[in-house]
């Protein structure tokens, strides 16, 4: 009898090991295939269509005051786009706030071009040709001009440092109907949802790989999405209340992940499934 049990235990152990190997091979080859798919698409990334539209918008006088973005300071001087995204979020004394790119663009639209805040944020996330987002196009243009630039968020600056610390706290804060934190889905290696590898954002390399590839063209949506969108959608997945666009909460999480990505080359706008 004891021999029999031992045999059964031994047999089931073999089965378990085998299943484990199969699952690993499956996960590995799926990840490889998705990587191949991304490579194949990288060449003709439709994000370039958004970049072109954003560049046009950046250079054309707009809004009730008929002012171009040439007077908009993204942190490197008025109108300077090159490398600006790699040093955001940062503190802007004129606004008295730490801002990410999208929030800063809205600030320039309101304070320099004369839009109301409601008008400037009417379509933050586009949906097809009937509902296009100026902000997504502008973000695509600005970020594309940081390609190859090393991320360098000024974490020594006290306001940015505070935002970073708040973002870190939020990242591990559990709540909502499912008691999820960001870290629940993004705190371990090798996790997957719908065949998609979930980056381990608690590791520097994970945060670097993820942050430096947003904004991104989402093939499944046929849209270019910004980091504000990425966070908004993860709040939904987390069953948290809707993340307010440009809120301190959104900027704190952005500062945390962007700061963790410091030192890595920016490579967006990328293309994702």
């Amino acid at each position, binding site marked *: 009898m004891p021999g029999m049990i031992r045999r059964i235990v031994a047999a089931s152990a073999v089965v378990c090991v085998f299943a484990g190997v199969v699952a690993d091979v499956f996960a590995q080859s799926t990840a490889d295939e998705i990587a191949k798919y991304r490579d194949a698409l990288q*060449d003709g990334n439709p994000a370039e269509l958004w970049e072109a539209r954003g560049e046009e918008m950046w250079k054309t006088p707009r809004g009730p005051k008929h002012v171009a973005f040439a007077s908009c300071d993204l942190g490197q001087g008025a109108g300077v786009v090159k490398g600006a995204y790699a040093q955001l979020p940062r503190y802007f004394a004129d606004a008295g706030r730490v801002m990410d790119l999208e929030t800063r663009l809205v600030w320039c639209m309101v304070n320099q071009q004369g839009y109301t805040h409601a008008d400037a944020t009417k379509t933050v996330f586009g949906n097809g040709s009937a509902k296009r987002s100026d902000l997504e196009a502008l973000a695509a243009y600005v970020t594309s001009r940081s390609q190859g630039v090393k991320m360098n968020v000024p974490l020594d600056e006290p306001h940015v440092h505070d935002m970073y610390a708040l973002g870190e706290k939020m990242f591990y804060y559990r709540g909502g109907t499912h008691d999820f934190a960001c870290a629940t889905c993004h705190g371990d290696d090798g996790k997957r949802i719908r065949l998609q590898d979930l980056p381990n954002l608690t590791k520097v390399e994970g945060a670097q790989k993820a942050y430096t590839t947003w904004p991104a063209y989402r093939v499944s949506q046929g849209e270019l999405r910004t980091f504000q969108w990425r966070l908004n959608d993860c709040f939904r997945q987390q069953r948290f209340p809707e993340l307010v666009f440009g809120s301190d909460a959104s900027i704190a999480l952005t500062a945390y992940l962007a700061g963790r990505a410091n030192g890595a080359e920016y490579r967006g706008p990328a293309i994702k499934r």
Partner: protein
Amino acid sequence: MADPMKIRANVVGDSTEVKVLMSHEMETGQRKDAQGKVIPAWFIQNVRVVHNDKVVLAAQWGPSVAKNPFLSFKFKGGAKGDKIRITWVDNHNDTRTDEATIA
């Protein structure tokens, strides 16, 4: 009006390699909106690429081509500085033509 195409054309050996991104919804006619109404088909039907008054590519597309299509092809010949002209026409008879210089 439709957005401009993004065109890159480069001499590679004795050929020219052309890469084009087009901005288009490419609706299949199979999808429904939130109210359950069919979204009408709307897609590029004809694509024509001309180099020095000579058609180097003529294509007929259907609704299975992806949104914001990317087209890549090569043709024999072409020299730096030459112009190529690309035109698409969709099933609404909307059309767009853009030009690029071969680099």
